[in-house]
């Protein structure tokens, strides 16, 4: 399971623009293990799509090396193409054809015989809930329906690695949740998924491993939990039944090994801990042992946005409008 299926060494791609050289990809080192969902997070213009295009053989890198599914992207693009699936931001389904025609053609272009392609298409139509509209012209599809077809096209030939470029951009929350489900399903089938996104929740929910990109460079990487733990600690807030106990409770809590700091806020105590989920039961137990009545408790964990903020000095949520090399 720990085989590396995507790796890059010092990958670079510069574009010349009117304003000067844009370092779209500026020395990127990546390593994606088999079976992982790899989340590639960053604001628009960070260089995610350019990196993806290099990995999917669409454009050559200026320098550096990229190995995908055991083959060199530059030297053996056709071998890479046979082993990967790609769903671009634009989608890729052919509008004047039906969903099923799209799928069968896709399979045939990967060298599948017609009966096999038809069989696999039927399988995917079932798997991705396309049954109701599979034989309609794609022009008539809704955004969410088309997106599911796009994904089906990407996995038609059962690729080892599936590249998804901002798969849920422009989808409503319901369709987004549906697509997340499908992605989780693919993962459970053993497909490695390389996913770019600028949605924090998406990277956090779906990914086993996250790399954060900004201005062509990887600024942080790790599992979402590791990343969040790196930057800030979690916060537990308790509201006491009897505010008069506050001083005594604070003193008791400060003695607990999991607690890093306690502070009093207007009507509650704020407890900083490393790992909120693990600390919560311990704190409850300690409070119980002292017979302290509490009327409220909440846990807020660090988000990937906190990570992004700490690494780049900007919030990911504020960078949406930025243009740049895509």
């Amino acid at each position, binding site marked *: 399971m720990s085989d590396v299926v995507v790796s890059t060494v010092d990958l670079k791609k510069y574009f010349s623009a009117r304003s000067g050289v844009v370092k779209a990809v500026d020395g990127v080192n990546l390593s994606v293990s088999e079976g992982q969902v790899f989340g590639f997070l960053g604001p628009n213009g960070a260089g995610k799509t350019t990196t993806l295009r290099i990995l*999917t*053989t*669409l454009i050559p890198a200026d320098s550096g090396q990229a190995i995908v599914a055991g083959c060199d992207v530059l030297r053996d693009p056709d071998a890479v*193409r046979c082993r990967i*699936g790609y769903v*671009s931001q634009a989608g890729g389904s052919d509008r*004047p054809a039906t969903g099923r025609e799209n799928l069968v053609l896709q399979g045939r*272009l990967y060298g599948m015989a017609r009966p096999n392609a038809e069989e696999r298409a039927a399988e995917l139509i079932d798997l991705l809930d396309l049954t109701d509209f599979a034989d309609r012209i794609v022009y008539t599809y809704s955004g969410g329906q088309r997106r599911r077809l796009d994904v089906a*096209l990407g996995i038609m030939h059962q690729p080892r690695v599936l590249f998804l470029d901002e798969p849920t951009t422009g989808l409503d929350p319901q369709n987004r949740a549906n697509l997340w489900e499908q992605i989780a399903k693919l993962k459970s089938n053993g497909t490695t998924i390389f996913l770019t996104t600028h949605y924090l929740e998406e990277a956090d929910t779906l990914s086993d491993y996250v790399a954060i990109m900004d201005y062509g460079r990887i600024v942080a990487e790790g599992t979402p939990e590791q990343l969040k733990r790196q930057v800030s600690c979690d916060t537990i807030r308790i509201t006491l039944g009897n505010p008069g106990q506050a001083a005594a409770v604070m003193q008791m809590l400060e003695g607990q090994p999991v607690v890093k700091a306690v502070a009093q806020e207007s009507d509650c105590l704020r407890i900083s801990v490393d790992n909120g989920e693990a600390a919560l039961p311990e704190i409850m137990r300690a409070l119980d042992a002292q017979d302290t009545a509490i009327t409220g408790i909440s846990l807020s964990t660090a988000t990937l946005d906190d990570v992004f903020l700490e690494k780049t000095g900007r919030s990911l949520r504020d960078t949406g409008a930025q243009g740049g090399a895509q």
Partner: protein
Amino acid sequence: MKLLTDIRLLFWRKMKETLRNPIYMLNSLLTPIIYLALFAPLLRKLVGVPGLNGGDILNVFIPGLLVIIAFFGGLFVGYNMIDEVRNGVVERFRVTPTSRFALLAGRVLRDMVNMLVIVTVFVVVSLPFGFRPNVLGFLVFVPLLCMMLITTSSAGNALGLLLRDEDRLSPIVQGINLPILLLSGMLLPMELAPQWLQVLAHFNPAYYAVEAGRVLVAGHITDIKVAEAYAFMLPLTVLTVWWATRAFRKAIA
């Protein structure tokens, strides 16, 4: 083998589009029929003018129209290409192990089949009007029409792929449309033109095709104009196809 299969698959993808909307084919038939009905009668008064003698006037006029059908059959395909680039279709195909040449050839072949259908229907329509082509000569003319279409369709696709924007494609398409038409001698023979215009015409592939078409329809297969047209069109076709295939290979589309 994989190459031929890919070309066949991609040809049928586009052909199905045509068959689902055959009305577009009628559209391309409309322009030449309007020329035939509303312009050709004007030429009847000009018989005897240099370049307009020899048999029925339609034997002079229709070869020109056929060249224009072939030329326009490919000129506007760039718009459809831009549409497909925008929807990610081209990108999706470029990530499959499909030959880049097949990506081009599938589209061009569909355009060629469309053109051949239109040419056939048009010739049949013009027979009652008095068009009497020499059969063997006409058969030698058809490959010229095909080369003309392959050239414009390949160039149209490549331009769409490289420009990726209708607003940048339009000036180019409109810019070559009229000069090619006027300098082909299709409407009025280039023999009537002043020297400088005749010199210009010699850079126009459509001019060679029209000239060759006229002598071929009259049955003069060994005329030097036929050899000239083939000598001009063959390398041009090869060059354009090579360029367009390269666009499919390199385009950041």
